[in-house]
């Protein structure tokens, strides 16, 4: 029974630590499926985390600790992410810029701008104050009280939203005309254009969706885990999400499992240490475990990662 409880708790924690990664990775999927590389996921998560923290904090002050404020923060973060993704969209779609360069520029801009405005808003301090309210876990009565499997029936609202996002993304991508167009634009924009699909508009929409979703990921971290925003709130999560996207072969369900895998590495780190593995192995080896697993998995286990054919190539009207 103890082993069952251990596995249940590990599952629960894995979902908690993967939620933000799944949002960002699915966001990246939309952009990349349409042919636009989105290395700016990190920056978009930062903007989402910053907006989520700041809006929640000030709404909380105005309303005096209401349960509604994290939701307002969460929605504002999505909006901010959509807006912040526009420079990347314009540079890489309208101006045919190198998409990696423009994404990196956006990452730098995001951390600089977020820290600058945090300092302006919080008397020169580079981190926001601790939030009074954040998301609480939702639980199913009675089932969640079970001592062994109870934590399977407890989840943050963001984790529940995450599963819906994955399912909806799957349906949109593979079962709707919009999804078909999106994939066509990412595989062969010229052919899609010939068939009367507006390549530019489709790509703009895809990048904006990715901005919104990545920002949801950032806001999730702030509202369920850190309860404040600092320069280190998002430290590489966007890049791990990008790895999950490749690992998941640009497929929503597989990408979700890839992100869950990375989340599990975090949860496993604690379990391994607390159950005495450090008596045999130096703690540093446990710290490198997630990264080691990443390399092993990417190197051997998944086979070739087939990217969308037109990924990273700007589309020029009239080109072949």
């Amino acid at each position, binding site marked *: 029974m103890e082993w069952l*409880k*251990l596995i249940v*708790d590990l599952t*629960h*924690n894995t979902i*908690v*630590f993967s939620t933000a990664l799944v949002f960002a990775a699915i966001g990246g999927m939309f952009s990349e499926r349409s042919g636009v590389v989105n290395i700016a996921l990190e920056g978009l998560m930062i903007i989402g985390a910053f907006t989520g923290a700041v809006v929640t904090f000030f709404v909380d002050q105005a309303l005096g600790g209401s349960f509604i404020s994290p939701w307002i923060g969460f929605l504002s973060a999505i909006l901010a992410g959509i807006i912040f993704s526009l*420079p990347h969209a314009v*540079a890489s779609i309208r*101006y*045919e*810029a190198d998409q990696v*360069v*423009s994404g990196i*520029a*956006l990452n*730098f*801009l995001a951390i*600089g*701008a977020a*820290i*600058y405005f945090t*300092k302006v808003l*919080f008397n*020169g*301090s*580079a*981190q926001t*104050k*601790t939030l009074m309210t*954040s998301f*609480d*876990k939702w639980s199913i009565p009675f089932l969640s009280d079970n001592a062994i499997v109870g*934590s399977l029936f407890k989840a943050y609202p963001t984790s529940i939203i995450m599963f819906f996002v994955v399912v909806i993304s799957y349906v949109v991508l593979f079962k709707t005309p919009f999804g078909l167009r999106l994939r066509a634009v990412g595989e062969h924009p010229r052919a899609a254009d010939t068939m009367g699909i507006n390549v530019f508009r489709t790509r703009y929409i895809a990048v904006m969706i990715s901005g919104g979703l990545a920002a949801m990921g950032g806001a999730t*971290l702030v509202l369920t*885990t*850190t*309860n*404040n925003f*600092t*320069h*280190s*709130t998002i*430290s590489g999560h966007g890049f791990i999400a990008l790895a999950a996207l490749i690992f998941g072969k640009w497929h929503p369900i597989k990408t979700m499992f890839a992100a869950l895998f990375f989340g599990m590495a*975090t*949860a496993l*780190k*604690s*379990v391994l*240490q*607390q159950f005495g593995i450090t008596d045999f192995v130096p*703690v*540093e080896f446990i*710290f490198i475990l997630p990264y080691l697993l990443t390399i092993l998995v990417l190197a051997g286990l998944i086979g070739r990662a087939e990217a969308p054919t037109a990924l990273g190539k700007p589309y020029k009207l009239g080109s072949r």
Partner: protein
Amino acid sequence: MKKSFMFKGLILTLVFSLALVGCAQDSEPGEESLENEIKVGMVTDVGGVHDNSFNQSAWEGLQRLEEAGAKVDYIESQGESDFEPNLNEFVNDGWDLTWGIGFLMGDAIAAIAEQNPDSNFGIIDAVVDAPNVVSTVFKEHEGSFLVGVVAAMTTETNKIGFVGGMDIPVIKKFETGFVEGVKAVDPAIEVVIEYTGSFVDAGLGKASAATMYDNGVDVIFHAAGGVGDGVFGEASERSGVWVIGVDKDQSITFGHEVTLTSMMKYVDEAVYQVSKDFGEGNFEGGVRELGLAENGVGLPAENPNLSDEIMDAVNDYKEKIINGEIVVPSGI
């Protein structure tokens, strides 16, 4: 062609806006001249001045100094590569005393102090052997011993957790003292120990706290800076569990519902005392070690969650440590 120019322009704008952000925390010395005014600056490590921990505590010490008529300012470091440039900023602007807050800044202080033998420095939590540096260290193991006693007398599951930041000597002192304190009350109590490898990633603190609480731990002592925020976050979602805070009275930030007590490290007092001595012309390089006897560590003044029985035991042990009856090992 035109398009590519526009794009380059866009990139350049982005890069320059970054450079501007870098200058946001400007520390130009002012022109006002109070009589005998000293100027004391501090550079935080990566935690920042609102880390609910020792950086914040140090800044509060300097703010007290400001009330006494000194001029004070701080610069926050975003990463370890910022330490030396940030220290240099104060030195080059002619500040009288510059503090480096935290063990991680030891090497940076040593380097800058050697390059600027005419400037004076203070460092918290590290020992730098230079005539112009005051190294302020604490006997964390003594204070941790006391919260270990508190934890051992509070736990109902006989399982206690310790979450450390990086595995470095100063954190080892917390761990060793804490475990000693627990064992002094009841050697049968199990202490689960985890190092997160970070002082900033609250997610790691949440992960380790979740795993500990899931497995029957009901009191966690954290010595992990910002990572501890995650420990508090996880505890506040559960019932019947406690966190023992570190460095400051963390119940002020996280409330008495989850904060059992805190292992106070009076960094503010140390920073204030040393800076004040400096202002009065009594600056002397060397090591200052503050323990229970010197009021450098201890429990907060108010402990609403602790029964009289626990407080009596704590005061009893405190006396024994001060008069040398118990010698708490530091583990390093």
